[in-house]
Every structure is written in C-alpha cells, then in structure tokens.
C-alpha cells in the first residue's frame, strides 16, 4: 500500500528547486536545469517557450499555405 502522505510530501518538494542526478536516464540537460528553478522561474521559462512554439506554429502554417 502506497503511503499517500509521502507522495504528497514528495510532490511538494518537486515544486521547490531540487536536483535531478546528472546520470538520470530520462531527462535532458534542459529538463535538469528546469528542476533547479523555483516555481516563478519555471513559469517564466514556460512563457518563453510558449511564445517560441506559437511562432513556430505560425511559420509552419504560413509555409503550408504558400505550398
């Protein structure tokens, strides 16, 4: 039986800056960098990515329309 309180506690830890081991087989350096940021900085990071992704989408759509 999983101790739900411990999972909640661990979840809360993940919302604070923490370090993913450098040899983590699942995540890139970008993702490891993100884990070291606080919530505010993670949100800022996401904001930058969203603008970038929207511009990429627009370029792709424009390209399709021109074809």
């Amino acid at each position: 039986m999983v101790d739900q309180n411990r999972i909640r506690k661990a979840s809360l830890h993940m919302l604070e800056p923490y370090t993913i081991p450098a040899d983590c087989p699942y995540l890139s350096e970008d993702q490891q960098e993100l884990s070291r940021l606080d919530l505010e900085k993670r949100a800022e990071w996401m904001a930058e990515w969203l603008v970038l992704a929207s511009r990429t989408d627009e370029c792709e759509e424009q390209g399709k329309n021109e074809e």
Partner: protein
Amino acid sequence: MAINSYQTLHYEFVKAGANVLLSSGQACVMYGIAAFSKDGDWIIEESDASCRAVLSVLERKGADYRLGAPLDVRWLSKGWTSHFEFRDGDVRARVDFCSRPPRVPGIKDMWKNAIHKQGIDIVDAGTLILIKQTRRVRDYSVIGAIAEVVGYNEKIPEIALEYLQDYELLNKAVSEWPKEAKQSSREAVQLLVARKNRKDVVSALAVEQDNKIQQDDMRIRRMIESSREFQEQFARLKTEWKMGACPLSGQHEQLMEIASSLS
C-alpha cells in the same frame, strides 16, 4: 510574479469560482521534469458552477471550441473531454479539460491528494504518473523521471519499483528494497529478484510499456469510432462559427444540441 498564459488562466478560473487542477504537460513543467508543453490541461470538478466559471473566463478571452464535447457535467461524467483555443498576445493557447482522467481509479482521492502551493493547484505526482501512461512513447520518460525523483530519491519503494522505466535504476531499487521487490507483481521486478539476465528484464520493460501504449491507443480509437457522427456535425458547426463569428456561449449551446449522440 511573471507568469505564463496558462498560469494566468489558472488564476482566472479559480477567481471565477472554478475548482480546477493543473494536469498533464503543464503539471510536468511545474514539477520541473518537462521542459515544455504547448497545451494547458486541467482537471475540472464535475459541477455546473465550475463549468460555468471556466466558460465565462474563456468567453472573455474570445476562445473557440475545438473538436470535443461541451464543457458540461453530462459529458464530463461520461469521460468525454472539452477543448478550446484562443489567442493570448503572442501565444496561441490551447486548453483541454476532463473530470475523469483515464486510469485514475478514485476521483475523490485525486481531489483529496491534490497539491496547493503559491496559487497553483495541481495533481499529485502519483496521479500524474497514471495520467501520463498514454500512447505516446515520450511520456514514459516522464514517468521514469517521476519514479526516480519521487520513488527512488525520496525513498518510496512502491513508486520506484512500479514505475522506473530503465534497467539500471530498477536494478538498484530492487537491491535497495528486496522485501518490497519480492511482493511486487511487476514482471521486470520479479526477473531482477530471480537474478535473470539483463536482456530478459529489458524485454519485460519494453513489453510492459508497449502494452500500456496499446491500451491507451485502443481507448482513444474507441472514442473516435463512437463519435463519428458527432465529428461530422462538429466540422459543419465549426465552419458556421468561423463565418458568423459566433461567441463561445453560442457555440456551447449549439454544441450541446449535437452532442446527444455521444454516449
């Protein structure tokens, strides 16, 4: 605090009176294990008040429905999902809602276990693991990462043994928690307990992942198959909305009329 479009939206939903939880990709970003997610996914409480609150915020944003069910308890309670899009400055926002995320057995427990911090309401990491067992291969890296951080690093053996996705870490977890490993029903764990060779363990992990991918793929195919008529009707409505600049409240009413075919 400088925030992004989806966080702003979350605050606005809550302020309008909706009970919502950040989920899936945005939750992974907030937990620091995904660099990016284009969409905003929320779990919404099955109540008229929450649906009305979310719709009012989205109407103010000039949002349009994308293909999906109306945001209403009748459809949410059957497992259907609702999808919207709108322009927020430089960002093309796509927002998705469900009330019964697939593979999550207890909705009440999910709400009880939700995490609230600095104005963020978010599913707990254990629930996120279940939600991320999708048909996309890349989601299994996210599951492995949560299992490493929450399970292995925080020393919760049930999470580590059940969800680590690679040989090396799983082998370490089995060595660290031999008693719990013996009790695990996971094939890869049992093979490690029996000291079988690496190839067998890796094969078991791959088959397990593929089974999960197939299960989710079949679930989505069934939904698509059972909503063919609705999809055609939706495409016609969408064209009319584009021509007539129909507000979201109008789209919602029309969508509810055609969505009776969704069982």
